[in-house]
């Protein structure tokens, strides 16, 4: 009896010692030397591994930051200027400062204003349905509504609005990592400056077709009428392929273009209500 107890104690102890020794030797022999700075920088990064910086994860980005001489064109969109400042202090290298941006959905083609002319059957993925045809509506530039952007968002900053069938960005949660921009086969999502109080004015349409055709497909399409172009005091609007685009760099948020748009395709968000009573307020879908 005592023998078997003793035997097993000896056996297990020696097993433990041998295993420990092996582990020790292996960890010494195969030790990988790593620049301690990398771990330090990685600590500073937000650890979301979203890939918004262009590197396949925070660790890879930290390595890149440490190993690159000039890091002024590297930026962590999730951490923003605060994190980049810390990185700059830790590494003693110059970093760029960028205005915070946020994702906006440049399509207002809800089920109501953009009637479905066909029915798609197949996997619910924008990328897959885009391979087959131009989508359930007659607009081949607008949102496909299958939510690839929502699926890739790691920050729960997007959801599909059931009534409109369009994705909505929750601006407070959006880290501007840019995954949704890449996921969208239609390039509908754009990163625009967040500005103070999240004020934004942008054209909620990408339809390049001529006015009548665009309007037929979708009631709130940009018809390329150039009215906004004429009224803009700062020349911030570019008109190309029957489509207006508001350049955020020049836009001063004067809001003059919004009421003149005959199809209400220019969206303004988070502005105080207008004083003039005769102007119909424009519905926005991207307020959340």
């Amino acid at each position, binding site marked *: 009896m005592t023998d078997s107890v003793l035997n097993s104690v000896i056996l297990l102890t020696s097993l433990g010692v041998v295993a420990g020794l092996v582990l020790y030797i292996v960890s010494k022999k195969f030790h990988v030397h790593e620049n301690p700075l990398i771990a330090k920088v990685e600590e500073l990064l937000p650890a979301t591994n979203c890939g918004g910086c262009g590197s396949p994860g925070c660790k890879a980005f930290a390595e890149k930051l440490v190993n690159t001489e000039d890091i002024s064109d590297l930026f962590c969109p999730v951490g923003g200027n605060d994190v980049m400042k810390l990185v700059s202090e830790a590494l003693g290298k110059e970093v760029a400062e960028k205005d915070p941006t946020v994702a906006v959905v440049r399509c207002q083609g809800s089920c109501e204003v953009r009637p479905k*002319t*066909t029915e798609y*059957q*197949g*996997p619910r*993925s924008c*990328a*897959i349905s885009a*391979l*087959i*045809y*131009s989508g359930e509506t007659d607009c*081949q530039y607008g949102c496909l509504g299958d939510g690839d952007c929502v699926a890739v968002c790691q920050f729960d900053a997007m959801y599909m609005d059931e009534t409109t069938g369009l994705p909505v960005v929750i601006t407070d949660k959006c880290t501007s990592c840019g995954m949704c921009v890449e996921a969208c086969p239609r390039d509908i999502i754009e990163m625009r400056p967040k500005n103070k109080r999240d004020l934004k004015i942008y054209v909620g349409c990408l339809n390049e*077709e001529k006015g009548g055709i665009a309007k037929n497909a979708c009631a709130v399409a940009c018809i390329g009428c150039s009215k906004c172009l004429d009224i803009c005091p700062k020349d911030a609007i570019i008109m190309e392929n029957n489509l207006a685009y508001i350049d955020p760099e020049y836009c001063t948020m004067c809001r003059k273009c919004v009421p003149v748009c005959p199809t209400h395709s220019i969206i303004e968000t988070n502005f105080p209500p207008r004083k003039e009573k005769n102007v119909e307020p424009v519905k926005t879908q991207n307020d959340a």
Partner: protein
Amino acid sequence: MLRTFPKGGIHPPENKLTSSKPIKRLPVPKVVYVPISQHIGVPAEIIVERKDKVEIGQVIARSGGFVSSNIHAPVAGIVTKLDMIVDTSGYKKQCIVIRTDEKNESNYQRVEYPLKREITLSPEEIIQRISDFGIVGLGGATFPAHVKLNIKKDRKLDYLIINGVECEPYLTADHRLMLEKTEEILVGIRILMHALDVDRAIIGIENNKRDAIEAFKNLTEDEPGIQIAALKVKYPQGGEKQLVRALLNREVPINGLPLDVGVVVHNVGTIFAIYQAIQHNLPLMERVVTVTGKNLENPSNFWVKIGTPITDLIAEVGGVPEGTRKIVSGGPMMGKALKNFDVPVTKGTSGILVISEDEASRGEPKNCIRCGECVSVCPMGLEPHLLMNLTEKTLFEKAMQEDILTCIECGSCSYVCPSHRPLLDYIRFGKSVSKQLQSKKA
């Protein structure tokens, strides 16, 4: 034992409703919509302007490169617009709109050209004319025909294979053409044999077209160079690689072409177009289209001008039947579902299939039960369930290691899946991403 390819394949219900219907000529449409991208490769460049008067057969868009093709005016008339309209790809594409000149006689002439046997042109002239006359593969892939014929001198080539398989259910365009233009096709084959300098040709025809096999056999009895091969009915035998394997027991290598095993394959429709171009100076302006569907009043085969809106074809067979939920350009296995009825017939349109509600709906996808049915029917020896899985998880590198790019998109896997999984939908997506990745690397 009839010959066939050994691995995979399926046998869907044939439903060849129109195999006994002679090809009728569709009345000349009032307006034709001619897309400039009707072939694989670079779109053609438009060389006409609005309000231009065009003659029948005039080049209206010029080939945009080596892998591209000229496009000819299928009718005489006036260019009314250069417009964007939805074509078979499901997207709006550039197209030339021509209003038919009703007074112009050439639109209505019904010249039945007499059979012309002797070949007067040299091989170089033949290939040049095939290129000039906008001839592309009419089997559906629409690969410019002259590209396949421009063969470097050092490549060994010993067989010309003529694809008369038409393995897609419902379609009978090639079948009818083989019956009605048997001699012309044989002359076309001789033209190509002359141009390619090969002395052996095989016509592969599936055994459900006994009459076509007999017709060819009767005419080639004393011609040892041209062989007629009856094939077992099995989809996708019309695929180039499967056909070469079935006829010659040669396996086209991965990422290779039939030329790698000394073979050039052409569809019978293409051969007839080549005959017309070489012997009668006719560019590719019309083709045979099967208009079919179980609920149609009078499904038929037609000679159709390129650019004719599909509405015109359906009106001719008795209109859109009650309960139609899907229209397909091409066959049910590989055809493309169309977005509306205004899509024009292009060089690749082999059929228009009208499908009713109960046939159109896809089953609700369920869990994969790993029955392996997709694996056993895949003619390329792939594992569709695995490829779908990898694509779903966006593991495209891995999918490429599993040879996702060799998939010929025949749809056999989706056809047999008892759980109605959208296998090909995902594989197609995986292929397109993998191709992008590959070209990025290169």
